[in-house]
């Protein structure tokens, strides 16, 4: 039924386009994807040196205030942890009586040893549960429990795949251990990354994604999200208000020298 439906739909489209052959012409995606512009963007991202990343950092420092994105550069993991803790101490719980934090399971975040630091502040930290094996899926109850935790959390901590300096955009890809609600439900979103994850702009990002995708990699994943600053609205008399449905604050912590 659905199959038949689809055939009819597509043949109507073909007729409207003035094509007579029933099967339609073989699909040729116009190969705009690998123009010189893309090739040079990929090459540029691969050959970046420390000085280039510093230049990107400067661009980011200009872009971030425009979208109310906080950015802190730190030289060591210890300093990054302290910077995060300072902000967490100041944060007020919005969705529950108690201040709580939820975070991705991620190598960079593990290095920050958040557990010890947060327990000193007496703030509970919740990680997503671990699937026993790759084939082992979570039950509805497990998903719901984590959803409830994230919905009550004051702060959610993620590790961005990339940050685009030109717009202050964080690129977050959906993978096990990286639930997307951690960057969505808590009142404050903190993201960590290293300097070499800076890219200039969307063209560089999409060039990389495009290249990897064509090599057969699951590069866009089933849910890739760009986050550019805190959630906002201007629906009441065109007045800008931060904190519509998503986090009302977003802060990016960048580890230098790696």
């Amino acid at each position, binding site marked *: 039924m659905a199959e038949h439906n689809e055939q009819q739909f597509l043949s109507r*489209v073909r*007729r409207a386009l003035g094509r007579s052959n029933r099967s339609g012409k073989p699909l040729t995606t116009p190969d705009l994807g690998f123009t010189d512009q893309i090739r040079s963007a990929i090459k540029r991202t691969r050959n970046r040196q420390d000085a280039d990343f510093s230049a990107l950092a400067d661009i980011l420092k200009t872009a971030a205030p425009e979208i109310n994105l906080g950015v802190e550069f730190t030289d060591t993991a210890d300093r990054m942890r302290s910077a995060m803790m300072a902000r967490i101490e100041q944060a007020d719980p919005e969705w529950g009586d108690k201040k709580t934090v939820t975070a991705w399971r991620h190598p960079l975040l593990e290095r920050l040893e958040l557990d010890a630091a947060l327990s000193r502040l007496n703030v509970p930290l919740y990680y997503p549960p671990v699937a026993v094996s790759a084939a082992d899926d979570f039950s509805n109850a497990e998903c719901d429990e984590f959803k409830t935790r994230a919905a009550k959390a004051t702060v959610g901590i993620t590790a961005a795949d990339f940050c685009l300096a030109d717009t202050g955009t964080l690129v977050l890809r959906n993978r096990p251990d990286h639930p997307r609600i951690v960057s*969505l439900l808590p009142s404050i979103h903190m993201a960590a990354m290293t300097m070499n994850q800076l890219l200039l702009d969307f063209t560089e990002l*999409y060039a990389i994604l495009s290249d990897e995708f064509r090599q057969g990699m699951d590069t*866009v994943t*089933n849910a890739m999200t760009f986050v550019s600053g805190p959630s906002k609205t201007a*629906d009441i*008399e065109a007045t800008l208000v931060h904190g519509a*449905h998503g986090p009302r604050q977003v802060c990016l912590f960048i580890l230098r020298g790696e």
Partner: protein
Amino acid sequence: MTHNPENYRQGARRAISNPTLQASIANLQERLGKGTAEAYQRLKEGPALRLKAHEMRMSAIDNLDGLLRQLAGKVRENGGSVYFAKDAAAAVNYCLEVAEKNGVRRVVKGKSMITEEINLNPALESAGIETVETDLGEYLVQMAGEPPSHMIAPAIHKIRRDIGRLFTEKLGVTYTENPSELTRIARRALRDKFISADMGITGCNLACAETGHAVLVSNEGNIRMTTTLPRVHVAIMGMERIVANLFDLDIMIRLLCRGAAAQKISTYVSHIGGPRAPGQLDGPDAFHLVVLDNGRTKILGDTTFREILGCIRCAGCLNVCPVYRKIGGHAYGAAYVGPVGAVVTPLLTGINNGRHLCRGETLCGACKAACPVDLDIPRMLVALREKLAYGDEHWQVKPDGMAERAAMGIWSFLVTHPPLYDAAFRTCAHIQRLLPMEGNMIRRLPPPFNTWTRKRDMMPLADISFTRKIRNP
């Protein structure tokens, strides 16, 4: 929502006599209209990127059969379902079936004009499903029982006092007219809805055929909530909203955000490529993509109007249109308003039915200059008027405005026969003395010309015509 010439006139009259609405739209246009023009200038490729994007859109439209097949294949490969809906009823029924199969009692919705086009909300409500709009502006107009009046800023016609009163009445909160506090009230009220909803329904700004992703932009985060929290996500797209690959997506997304809100990028861009995978904790268990025709193949089949399928519904043309500025969105009486609505609505619902819409615009060209993909809306408005003047079999247009056509026929006969023209002119110059005058102007013309003088005076004919002056200096 119905559109007809009488409602159009009444809606326009209401809007023009509403000073707050006039001020709100003027404010919106001043900021976004100008901001968008500047944002195009700041593109790294320069404003000419719009022309390249135009080609890109047209190439996608010309390859729609192949791209749609590729998209459907990819979405299914990623674990999603695809349904091709011939018309509004098919799309609505599919949504109802999915809802029924999943025992859905509450739906949260992302802002989407296409669900307005197919009138989805009333169908869900009458099936006993609570349907909650979650974009703040849409939430406000839904609560007030009104249609949206702008495609991006749906509640632009409401002022903070109305909203404060509305919240007090419907949500039982203490009155406030502070936008931050009003937003916080809505944030709290909607949060429970998001968390408890069984199904999320969104539109689809663009779909990427190469990778099989539905791409959605938002500033508030409601789209992320709607596509992440409920067990089922249904995205509905007009069949034309497709890009070939990630390279095109880069350009289209950047232009979409500039056209819509003069932003370099919206706060959130979600690329949705299927349901939750095993081992993932969030995301819907089922993802459905509905591809809607509902009159679009007919537009596709006519090369005069095919160009309008390039529209990405950013609403940039609303933010510069002098007609929209005065009459607001409600006067258009349809899901798509402003210049793009004046082309799309007649094409989707019948050119005779929408005759007032394509005739109501001024052909000033501001919409073309503001369009991120450089669509020639004025050309298509003229083409629609031509169909109305001469009739058209393909579009089943009955010639409209026969009186005007007859008048033009007489006029063209007269001007090509100078002695007759001169006689007619002199007769009229004599007769006009009988008309009521004020100062040097005619106050009223007799029927059927009286509509012209209902709102303005008319300059009388000169005693001696130009031709006579030239001949007998």
